[in-house]
């Protein structure tokens, strides 16, 4: 038995290493390119650049005449944070309501959101653009937040699936104790759903952070660009800068992940379930 366990461990680690390599390989290429001195991806010697330097990163943050990366970064941060907070709130609220309340039209809403998601999204882009011109929200970062947050509840199904697995018995017990539905939500269910909130927040942050279609459509001024749009607008010869920018774009999400990872896997404490 012990031997089998050991073998199991070895295989597990081998698999893990394989997975790590598969995921790291393409990223590593970007990272290496961002440190390459020549700045061209074609002057690589096989897989590695000929010489390394930090110059690209320095340039990325100091040479802002054409490409104001620090500014774009702050714009992205603002949009992503705003949409993350608003979007997470709306999504969780929707998912919870759909999971816990039984009301007229609930199944209709569930079915119609399912159907709405099937519509090719870019087809509606023209409408979104015109709508924003009518509301005067072009060239406003707030406009973006509004759209991202408003669209977020469409993906409530995942979260609803989570709430469906939290025993309703807890709710009923609380109700007998005289708690209102609002209290049950805030005091009991929210604390229990930390993992899904964290997951939602992470996705709600990542989507605006890496999207370039919508900001490209709604932000005309280069000073208002988000990082994704900015990177797409880089000149073709600026490859190292593109790579450095890409590495940096990934950083906040990795940091966010390390801050939140504990909450995500913690799960529901066993006591709560039994209660």
């Amino acid at each position, binding site marked *: 038995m012990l031997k089998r366990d050991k073998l199991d461990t070895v295989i597990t680690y081998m698999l893990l290493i394989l997975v790590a390599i598969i995921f790291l390989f393409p990223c590593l290429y970007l990272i290496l390119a961002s440190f390459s001195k020549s700045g*061209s991806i074609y002057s690589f010697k096989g897989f590695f650049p000929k010489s390394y330097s930090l110059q690209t990163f320095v340039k990325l943050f100091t040479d802002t005449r054409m490409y104001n990366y620090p500014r774009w970064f702050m714009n992205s941060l603002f949009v992503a944070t705003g949409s993350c907070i608003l979007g997470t709130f709306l999504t969780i609220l929707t998912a919870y309501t759909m999971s816990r309340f039984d009301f007229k039209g609930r199944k209709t809403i569930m079915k119609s959101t399912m159907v709405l998601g099937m519509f090719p999204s870019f087809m509606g882009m023209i409408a979104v653009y015109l709508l924003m011109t009518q509301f005067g929200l072009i060239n406003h970062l707030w406009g973006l937040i509004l759209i991202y947050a408003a669209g977020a509840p469409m993906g409530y199904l995942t979260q609803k699936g989570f709430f469906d697995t939290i025993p309703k018995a807890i709710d009923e017990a609380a109700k007998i104790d005289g708690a209102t539905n609002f209290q049950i939500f805030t005091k009991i269910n929210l604390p229990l759903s930390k993992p899904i909130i964290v997951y939602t927040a992470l996705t709600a942050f990542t989507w605006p952070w890496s999207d370039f279609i919508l900001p490209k459509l709604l932000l005309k001024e280069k000073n208002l660009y988000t990082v994704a749009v900015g990177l797409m607008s880089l000149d073709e*010869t600026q490859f190292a800068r593109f790579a450095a920018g890409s590495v940096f774009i990934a950083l906040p999400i990795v940091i966010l992940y390390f801050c939140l990872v504990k909450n995500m896997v913690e799960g529901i404490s066993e006591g709560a379930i039994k209660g």
Partner: protein
Amino acid sequence: MKKKVVAIMLLSSMMLSLVGCSKDNAEANNKKTSGAAVFDGKLEKNVTIHVLENDTAIDKGYFKKLIDAFNKEYKSKGIKAVDANMDQYSDLTKDGPYGYGPDVIYQANDVIMKYVKGKHVLPLPVEEIEGYKEIPSSAWKAYETKMDGKTYTCGIPVNVQAPMLYYRKDLLPADWKEKWDDNKNNVPDMLETWQSMYKFSIQRHKEDASKYGYMKSISDMYFSSGFLFSYGGYVFGKNNTDPSDIGLNAKDSAKGASVLNQLASVMSEDCIDDTITTNAYSKLADGTYFATLSTPDMYSTFLSELEKSYTGISKNEAEKKAKENLVMTTLPTLPKSGDLTDNSKNEIPTKTMGGVNAYAISSYTKAPNASLLFVKFATKFKMLKTRADMLGIAPARKDVAKSVGGTSEKIYENLDKNNIVLMPSVTSVSQIWTPSQTFLIDIAKDPYRKDAEKKYKDINDYSKGLDEMCKQIDEAIKTLK
């Protein structure tokens, strides 16, 4: 890889763009109207003009020079020009009507003429421009449109865009004067005929397998179409206005396709996708490639890339050395027979697809007169000369071209001689790009297929391929009509 996005974006903008304008010019002698009624000469006070320039001009510092000079001169009148700070390919038809567009735009003729269709840019009083007589009529015609029986001109041509041959002088063989100058005119043969370029490419690759002679992605229709045009191909009939007649397979254009195939065979597989388009700057700089095709506005990029490759000498020296070694010139001639191994010296000129870039004024500007003032200022001899010097572009004004001399003058002449074919301005032109690119990829791939799998064995196969491509385009145009 970055370039891939750019390529995609370019491609989509090219679909809209590259749409030249060659209106029926029979009545071009009609008296031109003096531009839109809004140009009443009364300068607006305390206005800021948003100018959308191209990225190279901003990057190389020319644009700053231009607006600084303008602002200095007109500060007293309360007129100020600023960078519109927008993407250079922003679509005026989508921004302008809602009040988000720039006042003055610098763009290629195809883009501006697309704007003219919906009257998004204003007709200009062109006679008032300083260099009116110095700009050739073919350049003006690219900006002419006829509406309600009147002829309007909607842009002030600034420079000419056409594929140019870039090569490294220092990479010529040391003994080129003896071995590569048959006619002893002191110009290397490979820059005079495609046959020699072909021969030289084979030789260079043979000597060192990691090195190549001429390299250029075959799949790029903008650069490859010229080979079809040279042998009698054209895009649309009736001077590029009749989409029901697609002429990319006309006359001997199959010979052009065969030439492209031969050229592909002396490159590497890189010519099949757009690898070369992206890496040409650094590969020319490090000496892997001897020559490539690109447009004049990329000169400064090639130059700075070459400068970077010179290490261990001062910046000034590197600049000087790079300027000496990097040469931009017009395209070599083609053999009439359409076979690059043919040495019969029966040559025809190589035609290219091209465009003219110009300033135009948005119809949605609040300060048309001040904008016109800016355009007039920016197209003055002095500013255009500075522009050509700083960016290495080819001016559309004769006097400026002469004063800059060299290649710029040659490009100007090519435009004047109609060797630069401007693309049609009809919307159907957007249908030609992907089918032609698919066909070009197929012929570029052929040299790298096993003998048994080769698709193009003789001239008939090319004809068939071209016919098929034209059929595809035709179907798309008719179906979507």
